[in-house]
């Protein structure tokens, strides 16, 4: 029972980490390697607001932190990625470099050790089927379901959301219908970064805000996206459940050391067997010779 419940929780957490990455890749076709850095940045901004300004309301801090991250994401596209659009190698190197710069800059700026934590939304825990789960994790699962639903509604029943999907499916046709390709990419990067920030706000109270978490988030996000198929929503959720349960099982039967090994091996094995992922939309021929 414990495995089942924590497996579900872990899967939702992974899906949250991957959501922003997969959104940006599916729409703007940019592998946003700065994802983990944006995640940590949000946590750090929220922490600064809460601890340097006493009595700052938590909710407002969250809203500000997420919006700042979204703006950073948009600026990254507007000033850097827009110039190297379509050159895959440069995109990877540039986003990776930006992410590294942010993370190592934060580390240099004093983000080390275990003193950086965000408070839980509601403290305490509850018994479900004899397993004790704290409220924060329950909130994560609840908000996770709501977020997925909201994103689905946004991309299917909203003009902006439909424009995003239009660009993702066929850029030229969408441009002929008057959808600005760069504008949608900016919006998608802003939303993707915002989602990374949102995930950070939800997940960081479970642990410390440290730089290494940024790298781990990036790895998990990539793992989930690659296994699910880059740019596929259903695949992302399915893959996060696969990895989530695989990790909980290894933790239960082996040791926590192997958690990351499982994720990394899963990526390598998936790429070898089916490079486009479980639900990948790309043609196989494009990815391998």
């Amino acid at each position, binding site marked *: 029972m414990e495995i089942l419940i924590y497996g579900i929780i872990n899967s939702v957490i992974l899906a949250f980490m991957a959501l922003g990455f997969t959104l940006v890749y599916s729409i703007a076709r940019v*592998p946003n390697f700065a994802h983990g850095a944006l995640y940590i940045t949000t946590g750090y901004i929220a922490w600064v607001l809460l601890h340097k300004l006493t009595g700052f309301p938590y909710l407002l801090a969250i809203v500000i932190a997420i919006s700042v991250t979204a703006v950073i994401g948009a600026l990254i596209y507007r000033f*850097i990625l827009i*110039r*190297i659009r379509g050159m*895959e*190698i*440069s995109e*990877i*190197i*540039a986003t*990776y*470099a*930006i992410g*590294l*710069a942010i993370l*190592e*800059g934060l*580390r*240099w700026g004093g983000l080390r050790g275990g003193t950086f934590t965000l408070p839980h939304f509601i403290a305490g825990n509850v018994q479900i089927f004899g397993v004790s789960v704290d409220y924060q994790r329950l909130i994560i699962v609840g908000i996770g379901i709501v977020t997925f639903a909201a994103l689905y509604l946004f991309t299917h029943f909203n003009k902006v959301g439909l424009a995003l999907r239009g660009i993702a499916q066929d850029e030229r046709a969408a441009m002929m219908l008057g959808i600005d390709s760069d504008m949608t990419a900016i919006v998608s990067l802003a939303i993707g970064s915002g989602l990374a920030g949102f995930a950070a706000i939800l997940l960081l109270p479970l642990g410390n805000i440290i730089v290494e978490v940024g790298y781990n988030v990036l*790895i998990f996000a*990539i793992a989930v996206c*690659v296994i699910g198929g*880059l740019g596929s929503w259903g695949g992302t959720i399915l893959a996060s459940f696969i990895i989530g349960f695989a990790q909980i099982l290894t933790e239960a039967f082996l*040791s926590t*050391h*192997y958690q*990351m*090994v499982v994720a*990394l*091996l899963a*990526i*390598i094995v998936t*790429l*070898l067997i089916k*490079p486009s992922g479980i639900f990948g939309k790309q043609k196989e021929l*494009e*990815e*391998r*010779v």
Partner: protein
Amino acid sequence: MEMMRKERIDRGVRVRASGLYAISSWREMLYLMGPPLALIIGVILLPFVLELAPYWKRVINIMCVYALLALAFDFLANYVGLVCLGGAFFVGVGGYLSAVFNVYLHFPVYLAIPSATICGAFLCTFLLMPCLPLRGVYFAIVTLMYPLLATRAIEALNILGGTNGITGLDSLPNEYIEHYAIILVTLFFLYAMRRFVNQDVGLVIRGVKDNDQAVRASGISVTKMKAFAVFIAAFMGCFGGAYISHMYMWSGLSMFALDFSIIPMASVVIGGGGTLLGAVIGSFILVPLSEVLRNFGTFRIVIYCALLTGFIVFKSEGIMVYAMRKYHQFERWVKV
């Protein structure tokens, strides 16, 4: 308003020096041979010049190791089309193998380094073999994972000294052998690679990057060519790793560190991708810079990354291509 445009014209000496008649005049010969000779002689004299500043002598070795790694990255990315974000994997494999040969099997240094280089290159090629059919983003992601996976696996299994690493490696016999081993190997690989990419095999490998279907249609196995290219790159990387492990007399998890992946990448971008010489020059600029910035701690990485992004966005041709253009051509404004 009068419209102007910039016109670029080859220098006279370049045209004169492009044929066989270049050997009829010292000036043309100097024009052709000057820059490469300056580089070679400069690098070879470096250990003597730096007698004045002993601290910097160590930097030469590290500089050359990074130059080798940058060469490997440049070759893979710009000639084969495989962006390998995991240069650290080669270094780690080479370093650990050399440590195993030296400490566990008691090979002497001059046997441990070459055997680690060759075995490491085979091992890396073998381990990367399954990923070779991948391209672009996918290959980049997988290779990024390899050093991380290796680190976690060593940590989790607690093999090869676990988190402490393997200590007690023999050092190289004396300081000058230490310097010249790496300097000569770097120069050798630099010019060997420049020739190699223009040989028949090199042309096929470049074909893999430009149009792999055409290579395939010619009855040449694309995967085999890629494996060969990875072998060469891994050879350079593993030599660097084996050398470093003997220089520090230690081989540990930091052999798989991010530095070994990011600095060569930055060097190539700054030096100019696809020129090979640019990769070396880039690392000769970046590594001393990083040494100067040592006091800033991790802020160094921020500076690299800013440089890297700046070059990618604003000057994607790199220093080498820019310098070549200035050397061979002059510019003037003309009316349109």
